[in-house]
């Protein structure tokens, strides 16, 4: 269930914490396993992580459902996380989200038909002085305009 490569990455995180506190690595372990499984966590993968870290399955499930960055439904290869909190809102985020939805033909929370892109509305991403902004996978894109969004999204493959 967990690849050797994933185990190696998880082990790197385990090392940061005191002996016997390996469950501290659960947040990263879930992300690592998610990344290897189409950006999604399943019941079994959560259990596998729990087993690997020697913690109860429900404890890993609590973590997997508490934090935003785990997906429990199919998502795109690229996830666009569009901030719609106050600073971005003041700078026109709502219109830009509508623009993006039209461009991709999906609503927020959905995945494009080709499975390439999904869009999520999220709370403040801590880049308010660059509003409006979104995050695609690991990267922030700030001071967005409709044109800029078109360029960025067109470049996704």
């Amino acid at each position, binding site marked *: 269930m967990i690849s050797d490569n994933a185990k190696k990455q998880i082990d790197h995180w385990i090392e940061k914490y005191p002996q016997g506190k390996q*469950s501290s*690595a659960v947040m990263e372990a879930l992300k690592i396993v998610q990344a290897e499984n189409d950006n999604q966590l399943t019941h079994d993968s959560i259990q596998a992580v729990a087993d690997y*870290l020697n913690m109860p399955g429900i404890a890993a499930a609590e973590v997997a459902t508490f934090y935003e*960055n785990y997906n429990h439904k199919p998502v795109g290869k690229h996830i666009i996380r569009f901030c719609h909190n106050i*600073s971005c809102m003041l700078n026109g985020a709502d219109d830009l989200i509508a623009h993006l939805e039209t461009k991709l033909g999906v609503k927020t929370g959905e995945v494009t038909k080709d499975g390439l892109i999904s869009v999520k509305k999220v709370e403040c991403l801590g880049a308010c*002085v660059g509003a409006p902004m979104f995050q695609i996978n690991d*990267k922030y894109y700030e001071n967005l305009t409709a044109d800029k969004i078109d360029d960025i999204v067109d470049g996704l493959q």
Partner: protein
Amino acid sequence: MNEVCFKNLDKDQCWSLETYEASGGYSTWRKILKGEYTPDQIINELKASGLRGRGGAGFPTGLKWSFMPRNAQGQKYIVCNSDEGEPGTCKDRDILRFNPHAVIEGMAIGSFVMNATVGYNYIRGEFIEPFNRFEGALKEAYSAGLLGKNINDTDVSFDLHAHLGAGAYICGEETALLESIEGKKGQPRFKPPFPANVGLFGRPTTINNTESFASVPDIMINGGQWFADLGVENSGGTKLFSVSGHVNNPANFEVSMGMPFSELLELAGGMRNGAKLKAVIPGGSSTPVLTAEAAMGMTMDYDGIDKAGSMLGAGSVIVMDDSTCMVEALTRLAHFYYDESCGQCTPCREGTGWLYRVLKRIMDGKGKADDIELLLGVQEKIMGNTICALGDAAAMPVESFLRNFREEFEYYIEHKKSMVKG
């Protein structure tokens, strides 16, 4: 401007160890390694500096460091709070990106004061670029022999790790943050006991904000008094203000405490399109909103903002012009707290949703005449009754928006549309 956390901002590769050391970086840490400081000396400098916690609560850092049971047996921890999730706040991200070594050195100095040999920097999960910068800096510091066990054969040890979050504003609350490092849901702990006695993994722990730590090295280089003099009474030093919203040049500004708001607004390029200032949230979404008038008369320091009727918080200045619908703005904030409540305690779990739903209903044109009283009643019932301050943070905007802009809410309820946007 840019005298402490941002002092190297204009330099090439300002985040590198080389740049940092060239401006005196790690000099304090090296002195500590040579045995030239006692913990008390450091605490005294910090007390003199007037540095107050930059995470939002403004608790004096020197005092906090003096509480640590330094001589307690066993492992102790030092933890940096880089969870930065409060709407309007984005300064710690830039510190991590542009001056990570100051955070490392600040934490190292702290670890020496507390006699804590292990530290964690909790970085919010979305901050991958800042995380990589910080990891890079850690690597540099380790290879330079500045971190590790028995550094330079001294009896000083300090191991520092970065821990990544996974998306939850509540993890910025210090005890939720500790739970999160322990691999659990970020649910705040009740206090007492306080982290200083029972913190990470049940051990004594000191937690500070990124900016607080990053300010420490320069305080030590130039002296507490120097830092205090940069600011005003009760608010020592410079402070990073994240100015966002309807301004021409939104950015992070490191300026002296006590700067009039009007000057800060000018630094940020003034109002966008020459529009009229309507309202300002001076310290991040949890702090009460101010009218233009109140804001224009205030100075940017703890007492100044307090006098104007709000709080300095994390220094996150959200500027709104007269095109802003306050009902919409508050609804957005209410949604935030509703979304981010950890769900553990009753008033916050149930109350934030209630507040949001009533506001949403008003926005949907289904407001009722007594909704304003209802909102005020609900926020009052949350206030002060929760485990952590998120409950208060959710309540305060509601109270202040309704107090300062009540007519907009009444209009919306009555006319089923925005007074501003139509």
